[in-house]
């Protein structure tokens, strides 16, 4: 399907939003790599849900927000976004730093949340191991660490199959800069978040790739213990990007869960 593109002003900050599908609203928050557009998994999920996929401030072609200092700012921003869009209750799905943002939003306003899907979210300090320092690596070295096996990605050609244009390279740099602004220190976690997660009673699905080399699976265990109503599903032969590495399986799990399946 073809989504529509809108520019939404949240206060003075305008963000680009992809909107598509029909049904209960699902807000999708992207990871550090930016908004990769309308993805294959979205086609399946959009048959039952209206997907709102904004590009974070400072990312892509959304307005800058140099005043932001952390993911909690982004979380407050998206709660405001929901007000602007007139969405009083949504399902919320976030990947990586988008997952961390979703978790923060859930702790701030549990009432706006129907069901929560966190895909390999950052946000917690791993009990064992470390979250990979993505800023230490040139992007071309980072990509192979991000996925389990790039050759099996169905959308590989469209997403990663050619050299970026100058515009795309500029956007990639912008995405990286804004990620640094939001996550530099403490790197990729909020030491206060674990103390608030027990507030989130919404059914939560935690999805992780067994071979995630960016955010250790142990973080999934930690989220599962801290969230009162959460289930952790670990996908085999999958890295940090289940949404594109296994889009069909991913869509199926998300649809089942949002349909009211067990958390």
């Amino acid at each position: 399907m073809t989504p529509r593109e809108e520019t939404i002003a949240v206060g003075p900050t305008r963000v680009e939003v992809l909107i598509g599908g029909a049904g209960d609203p699902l807000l999708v928050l992207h990871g550090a790599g930016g908004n990769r557009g309308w993805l294959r998994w979205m086609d399946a999920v959009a048959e039952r849900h209206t997907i709102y996929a904004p590009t974070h401030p400072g990312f892509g072609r959304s307005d800058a927000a140099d005043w932001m200092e952390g993911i909690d700012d982004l979380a407050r921003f998206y709660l405001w976004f929901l007000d602007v869009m007139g969405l009083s209750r949504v399902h919320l799905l976030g990947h990586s730093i988008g997952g961390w943002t979703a978790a923060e939003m859930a702790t701030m306003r549990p009432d706006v949340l129907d069901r929560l899907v966190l895909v390999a979210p950052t946000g917690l300090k791993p009990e064992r191991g470390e979250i990979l320092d993505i800023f230490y690596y040139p992007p071309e070295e980072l990509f192979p660490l991000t996925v389990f096996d790039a050759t099996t990605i169905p959308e590989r050609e469209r997403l990663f199959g050619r050299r970026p244009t100058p515009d795309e390279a500029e956007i990639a740099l912008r995405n990286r800069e804004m990620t640094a602004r939001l996550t530099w220190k403490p790197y990729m976690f909020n030491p206060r978040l674990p103390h608030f997660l027990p507030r989130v009673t919404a059914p939560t699905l935690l999805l992780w790739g067994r071979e995630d080399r960016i955010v250790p699976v142990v973080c999934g265990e930690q989220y599962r213990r801290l969230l009162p109503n959460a289930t952790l599903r670990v996908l085999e032969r999958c890295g940090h990007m289940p949404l594109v590495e296994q889009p069909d399986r991913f869509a199926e799990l998300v649809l089942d869960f949002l349909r009211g399946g067990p958390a």
Partner: protein
Amino acid sequence: MKLYYFSEMPHHEYPDAEGDKYPSLRLAFPNTFFSPEIAQRNYQRYLDEYDAADQAGFDGLMINEHHSTPSCVNVSANMTAGILARTTRNAKLLILGNILPIQDNPVQMAEQVAMADLISGGRVLSGFVRGVGVESWWANTNPIHNRERFEECHDLIIKCWTTPGPFRWEGKHYHFRHVNPWCLPLQKPHPPIWVPGTASPETAVWAGRMGYTYVPFLVSFEVARELFDFYRQGAAEAGRTVTEDKLGFLICAVTADTKARALEAGRHFVWRMGPTLRGPAEYFSPVGMRSRAASRFALKARSVSLSKMSYEELVESYYIVAGTPDEVVERFARVRRELGIGHLLLEAQESRMDHATTMRSIDLMGKSVIPAMARI
């Protein structure tokens, strides 16, 4: 033209092949190769050489600071300034410089520089730098904030030196309830400020606007002239006239009794140009540290990496000057003609350049080169 002696206090006493195994000597090369015994001797040696440079008549002694690298184990420019303030008599102490963006307490920095200025009898030249990216990693300071923190840290230090306390500072990055340093510089209104540059047009413009002395480090004449143009642009905006006293330049230099010996000694500088600058771009310029304009300028300025140049090319291009005193005078004079500068900073030491060679170079500079350059 004034000459400054500079030792980066390296710790090059390890097998080079070991360093080659790591992506960079900075950040990545394990400190298991750091030898406290060797460092103890080296510090004494480097400080003795600074003392000798003072006695030889150098106009200034330049001190810098780096972290997590064998290329420079001077980990506190202000600590070294405090030592040299006490052991030297005449030379200016050019701290070039304190790395402002990674400081969490600018008030303490203002106090430390003031104390060195007091102990030295007002000989401090206070350089402020943004630092290479390695320092941001070392301090874990968000590189996105590098320029903002540089400017705010600078503003607070200057206010410490020029505004009677107590006062309150609530900035974006720095917050202090009570600023009232009981240690103020001897020089009024404050020690002269110096700023180095390698690639950032914004820094050059800013330094010009502020009227600070500006010194490009290890760049070609062409790039230095472009940076000086940015500096002049900033100066013009502020209605300032640029005199040669506001412009400096840094190169590596050694002299000896014969050309052959000098060229042999100068070869040691190749390590500093190559291996110590090797590493992923992310180490030296982490995300957000450079503006788009600075990135474009850096790409142009470093179209040929120093590490790719042969020793002969480095000498030919004036990154390294090595020769008899007469030859060195001639080449320094050429630098001055090319750039119209008032200060020439000489990185004049490398740990594998032995003490005797270093001391002979300092001695010959004092006897022949410094007097000759003073006349130019």
